[in-house]
Structures are given as structure tokens and as C-alpha cells.
């Protein structure tokens, strides 16, 4: 046995990312690791590759307990990782990237460029990669970059290679290329850990599969004996906690219509409608194009094509400003980066989108601002000392309520909530859902992106599932997690059992 993990734990502050991680990998095996978003897969891989240190449990490498302080130590043992996002230096050449941090030294300790290029050429030729050592990485396709990452990982006798969703950015033919490499490596006796969301990839690739759920390893089995249905059950099988239940409202007039809408490359030909009083869930895996769709609707993507109707009138948003004026609101996924001005007072954040209404002739009414802030703090139950407090000092949940109140106080009618409960505690989640429900009851139309399946099931009246930039299907609000996962992850439809 090459690698063995038992009872591995990892905490980030109060959040437990991994509580009981177990995994064993043999030499010459392709071992798939699966689980929902946030199940702890990436954390586990980072611990194995020395990018993070575990807080508990045992990790054995060739039978000996190991603890890597950094990726270099792991690399010395023969463990390497191909990352989901490219970690290459775009302005350097292919060869320079392959040897980044392990440059070939010549006389006087200077970098021996010729030797480095020579070695890179050998490596590329050996694997028949469509690359040239001198090419600049910036100009490569996502697949090309992925190949450079792979070269970098295998350049010096790697015995365990970790792939973290390597094909999420790749085309069909590029994906096949990656598979070929994985098989070649396996046949040479390298152990391969392969993380993926796409079930179709698994059948042809994996020898065994380990499934994680909520930071715990729940099952390991040979690929050939496990059906797709069983796999999904293991992935989502937790008890659905009765966090919140929404009484659906009879929907009113159509408020938002998106038709044949594309935002290349992430969103392809999407059509949907949201009516007054409705909460429509938008489910899908990371990278399915949900965030990109919301941003494109909101006027943040200049390349977006297709038609939009707001209140049954055709519109075209070239900027967020135009979308906001039409009554559209976006509660972005990344609160810190795009939602909140952390250094500014709560009051200033609350009125940021609605300043026009309280500034006749451009002159700010401090009295109106005070009233609006007080109302927002009360309505959304923002727990703070006063509206003058810096927004960045609040807890995650209260920060999110400030972001939401920016739009509620402006009187927005169409809400795009992108992962509204990310990083906030259970109590605040409930309050956020209550606000969404209240808004819908007062006639707002809500589109809610969420990767938390139980939450989408509790809140949404109907659920759209996106896959690879398209709407893969629509489900009623009272569906099951299995149904959603099937639409989100399957490339071939129903009944893809063991082959």
C-alpha cells in the first residue's frame, strides 16, 4: 500500500472541514474521490500534498507515519498534485514553468536554460504532449496549461499523483488526452488519486472509489460493484435537517424572462422565467455557469448575448447601473470582494445602491439615511451597535444582511441571490431565508443560486439545474437531492449503472 489515511481531521477556526478522513491508495491504482461541494475532498488532497497540515489522525506513506510541512517535502517523497486552477506563471515558458522552484543550476549557481529546455523537451516527447518547451504559457489553451501542470508533477519520479478535477475546464478531446495520461501513469505503477464530479468519467477510469460527505469518508468500494444510484445515495445521504420550510405562494405576473441567453464561455443558450412571488432555485456543480449567468443578467458581462425581459418589456443591460435602475438586484457570491465596503459604516453600505432617492440635486439627506438605516437594521435584524459601525466588523451573517438590505431599502423587485448562505451560521441562514420569503410574498421575483441541496429543497418553489453552462432540466420544489444530482452530474441520462 502506497498511502493510508485514517481519522484525519482539519479545522479552520470553528469550521470542521474534515472530521474523519480515510483513504488508501495502492501503487498502479486509479482511485476516485467523490463528494458534494464542500464535502472535504480538496482539504484531504491538500493535506496529502503538504499544502495544509492535519489537526489529527494518521497519514502513512509506504507504511511510515508522515507529516509534510510543505509541498516540497511531499514532492521529495514522490507525491505531486495537479491543481484545479492553473498555478502557473503565465509569462514564463513551458520549460521554465515545469522546473519552477526546482530550476536546473549550472556553473556559479546560475540557471542553465539550455539544460532545462533540453530536459523539458525529453519529458514532452516521452508523453507525446502537443507542447513546445519554448512556448509561453500565457498563450496556451486551458488543456495545454493542464498538461504543463502534469509535466511539472511527473518530472521527477512521482509515485503518487493527485488530480483535482482536472477536466472541468477541458474540451471533450482534451479530456480524452488527460485520461490517456492517467492510464499510462497507472500502467507504469504510479498511484493516482482523481477527484471528479462527472460520473461519466468514472466508469472508464477508476479502479476504486472513496466517497466523502460532510467532511467524513462514508464509503470505499471497487468501481465495478458500485452502481451510480448507490454512489449518489452515499454522496447526499445525510438527514435533511428541518432548517426551514416555505409555504409556496401562487405566482403572479412574469417579472424576469431570460431567453436564448449566452455569456461565452460559461453560459450557453439559457432560457428561464421568474414570476412575482416565486423563489426559483438554480442548482448545479461548481463551474456549471450559475454565477456567470447571474452576473451576465446583471449587466456585468459585455459579451452576453440573448434577450432579457423585465416586467414583460425587453431590456438590455450594458452596465449594472442599468440593471439596478430596472429594479434588479444581485447579492454576489463573494461578499468580501464585491458585496461589502468593509471599511465604511453600515449605514453607508445600506444606502449605497439607493442614494439617488435620498439625494435630491445630488445633496445627501442625512436624516433620510438615518431613517432608512434604522429601518433596515430592524427589518433584517442586523445585530450591531449602531449604523455608524464599520460593516467589516460584523459577523458573516450580519454582513450578508447588510448586503441584502442595500437592495431591500432601494426597493428592488427582482433578486439574484448567489450563494446567499455561504459562510454564515445556521441562525443567520434561517433569517436570510425568512427575508427571501417575505420579499417574495410582497411580490418580488427571486432567483437563488445555491450549492447546498437541502437549502434549495427547503426554499425553492421550483428548481432549475445547470450543467456545463446549460439548463439541464427543471424539477419541482419537492424533489429529492438524488434527482438534482443526477441532472447536475450525469452526462448520459437515466440508468447509467455499472457497465
Amino acid at each position, binding site marked *: 500500500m502506497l498511502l493510508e489515511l485514517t481519522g484525519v481531521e482539519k479545522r479552520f477556526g470553528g469550521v470542521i472541514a474534515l472530521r474523519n478522513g480515510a483513504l488508501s491508495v495502492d501503487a498502479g491504482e486509479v482511485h476516485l474521490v467523490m463528494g458534494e461541494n464542500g464535502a472535504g475532498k480538496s482539504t484531504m488532497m491538500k493535506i496529502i500534498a503538504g499544502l495544509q497540515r492535519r489537526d489529527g489522525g494518521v497519514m502513512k506513506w509506504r507504511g511510515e507515519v508522515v507529516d509534510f510541512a510543505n509541498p516540497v517535502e511531499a514532492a521529495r517523497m514522490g507525491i505531486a498534485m495537479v491543481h484545479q486552477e492553473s498555478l502557473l506563471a503565465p509569462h514564463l515558458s513551458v520549460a521554465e514553468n515545469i522546473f519552477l522552484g526546482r530550476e536546473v543550476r549550472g556553473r556559479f549557481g546560475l540557471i542553465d536554460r539550455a539544460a532545462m529546455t533540453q530536459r523539458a523537451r525529453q519529458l514532452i516527447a516521452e508523453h507525446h504532449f502537443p507542447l513546445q518547451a519554448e512556448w509561453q504559457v500565457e498563450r496556451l489553451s486551458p488543456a495545454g496549461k493542464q498538461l504543463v501542470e502534469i509535466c511539472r508533477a511527473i518530472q521527477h519520479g512521482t509515485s503518487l499523483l493527485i488530480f483535482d478535477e482536472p477536466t472541468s475546464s477541458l474540451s471533450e478531446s482534451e479530456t480524452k488526452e488527460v485520461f490517456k495520461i492517467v492510464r499510462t501513469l497507472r500502467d507504469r505503477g504510479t498511484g493516482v488519486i482523481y477527484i471528479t464530479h462527472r460520473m461519466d468519467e468514472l466508469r472508464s477510469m477508476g479502479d476504486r472509489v472513496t466517497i466523502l460527505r460532510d467532511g467524513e469518508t462514508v464509503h470505499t468500494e471497487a468501481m465495478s460493484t458500485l452502481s451510480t444510484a448507490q454512489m449518489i445515495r452515499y454522496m447526499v445521504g445525510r438527514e435533511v435537517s428541518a432548517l426551514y420550510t416555505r409555504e409556496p405562494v401562487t405566482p403572479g405576473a412574469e417579472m424576469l424572462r431570460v431567453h436564448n441567453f449566452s455569456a461565452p464561455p460559461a453560459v450557453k443558450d439559457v432560457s428561464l422565467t421568474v414570476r412575482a412571488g416565486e423563489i426559483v432555485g438554480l442548482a448545479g456543480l461548481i463551474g456549471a455557469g450559475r454565477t456567470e449567468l447571474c452576473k451576465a443578467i*446583471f449587466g*456585468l458581462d459585455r459579451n452576453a448575448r440573448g434577450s432579457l425581459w423585465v416586467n414583460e418589456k425587453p431590456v438590455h443591460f450594458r*452596465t*449594472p*447601473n442599468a*440593471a*439596478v*435602475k430596472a429594479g434588479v438586484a*444581485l447579492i*454576489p457570491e463573494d461578499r468580501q*470582494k*464585491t*458585496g*461589502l*465596503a*468593509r*471599511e*465604511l459604516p453600515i449605514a*453607508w453600505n445600506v*444606502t*449605497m*445602491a439607493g*442614494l*439617488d432617492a435620498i*439625494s435630491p440635486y*445630488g*445633496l*445627501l439627506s*442625512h436624516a433620510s439615511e438615518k431613517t432608512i438605516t434604522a429601518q433596515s437594521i430592524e427589518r433584517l435584524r442586523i445585530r450591531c451597535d449602531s449604523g455608524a459601525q464599520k460593516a467589516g466588523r460584523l459577523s458573516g451573517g450580519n454582513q450578508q444582511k447588510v448586503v441584502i438590505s*442595500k437592495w431591500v431599502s432601494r426597493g428592488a423587485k427582482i433578486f439574484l441571490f448567489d450563494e446567499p448562505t455561504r459562510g454564515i451560521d445556521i441562525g443567520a441562514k434561517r433569517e436570510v431565508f425568512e427575508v427571501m420569503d417575505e420579499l417574495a410574498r410582497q411580490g418580488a421575483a427571486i432567483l437563488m443560486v445555491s450549492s447546498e441541496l437541502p437549502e434549495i429543497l427547503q426554499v425553492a418553489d421550483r428548481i432549475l439545474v445547470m450543467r456545463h453552462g446549460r439548463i439541464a432540466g427543471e424539477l419541482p420544489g419537492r424533489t429529492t437531492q438524488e434527482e438534482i444530482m443526477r441532472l447536475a452530474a450525469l452526462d448520459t441520462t437515466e440508468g447509467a449503472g455499472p457497465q
Partner: protein
Amino acid sequence: MIQRLLPFLTLVVLFVALSIASPHFLTATNLSSVVRQTAVFNIMALGMTLVIISAGVDLSVGSILAMGGLMGTMAMSKGQPIFLGVAVGLATGAFFGFLNGLLITQLKISPFIVTLGTMGIVRGLALVVSNGLPVHEIPKDFSYLGEGTVVGVPFVLLLLVACALLVHFILENTKLGRYTFAIGSNTDAAVYAGIPVRFHTTAIYAICGLLTGLAGMIEASRLMTGQPTAGQGYELQAIAAVVIGGGSLRGGEGSVVGTLIGGFIMGLLANGCDLLGINPYVQQVIIGAVIILAVSVDELRKRRSV
């Protein structure tokens, strides 16, 4: 709280210390000369305050000051009345500020680079337009702008107070002021909130240019010439005044009161060094050290309060 007041306390201590150290300090002549000397870059610093709060910077103000003064005095030398000459100076400043804003927002290049470029361009244009020669044929009454008094108070002090009140009003009581803070604190969040970021950014640079144009006319009035080489290095003085007064080059922070205190600290330091006979070369060392000291104390305060 004490730390927040530190710039002000420094100013007071400096004032008292200089009063004791030099018998010539606390005289009407000296104090009004300090006011006149500092008014020019204090007015520039007020415009710079807006720019820095919006997380930008304007390196071209020294050049714009020269260009404004030059165009204004050229208009007067061609026989235009004084008020029109001043208006030309202000308009010139506003125009080049507007140009800065336009380049920054349309080309999406960082303010540092854009204004580094326009610093050279505007200076060069001023030299080209004037053939490198100063403008001398200016009506005598023009000197009132820089040297005149109103019941014993230097006229420039009144101008400075008026500009300070204006910028303070913009920051505290207008939509533009609020957007300036929003853009500087988190530009992405400002865009996501539907704020017309480009329009307001351009307006901020135009206002900065306008105030710089006024400073250029004051400078020309004090020297009674339109100098194409005027204002060299003033941009750094203006930036220094803002940051000593608590402005942050990361944006979202700064105030008119802080900037004025920062400007007067620099003015008193220069004046004090002159009165005490300190070598002007050493003066530069002292002022440089004060800038670093002031900002590091301010950083410490912020880090502790987070």
C-alpha cells in the same frame, strides 16, 4: 482617540515650540507669509484628498498648476480682463483633470501610470506653448489674488477656507462625496451596487484639476509671472499633506481637516527650519522623515483598532 488627534496635537506642539524657539515666529508678517506659502499646495492637497479617498493618485498636479497659471496669464497678457484670465486658468486645470479622469476610466489604466504620463505631457505642452519663456505682461492688480488682504487677513487664506468648506461639503453632504468613499473603499462593490463609477471618477479628477488651476493662478499672482516651470515637485507636497492627515493611498480614508493639518505641519516645518537657520538640505531630510513617521503611527493605530 488620542491617537486620532495626533496630527492635530503635533501641529499644536510644533506651533508652541516654534513660538518659544524663535522670536520671529509669532509675528503677523511671518504667519501671513506661512499662510501664503502653504495656501498654494494646501488648495492642491484639497483636490488630492478627493482623488486619494477614491483610491487614486494624481501626479500631474504640479504640471497642471503650471499650465493653468500660464494659460491664465497669457490671456491677461493678450488684453483680457483679470477675472477672465483667472477663469481661463481654472478651466485649463479642470480640463486636464477631466482628461486624466477620462484616460483612467476609459483605458482602464492605473491612475499612477496615467498621471505619470500626463505629468510629462502637460509640462511639455506648457513649455511648447510658452516657448519656455515666462509671461510677464500682467496687469498690476492681479497681484491681489496672491498678496492682497481683507481687513488684515490674507486673501488667499479666505480662498483656502472657502475651498476647504467646499470640499468638506462635497465629501460629507453630496452623493458624489459618498460615492468617492465607496469607490475608494471597494471599487468592485461600488460597481456591483450600480454606482456609475466611471462618471464619478472622472468628476473627481476634474475637481482636482479645477482646484489645481486655482492654485496655479495664485502661484502666478504671487510671482507676477506665468512660469511654464512652476509647481515642480508640488504633487509630492500635496500627496504628503493628505497622507500626514490620515488619508490612505489604499483609498476610502481621508478628510479635509486632516489634509489641512498635514499641509500646515509641512508649512510650519519649512518655516521653522528657515527661522532657526537650518540648512535647506537638512530640511528635506526632516520633512521626509516626518512623512514616514506620521504614516507609520497612523498605520499602527488602524492595525490596533481592527
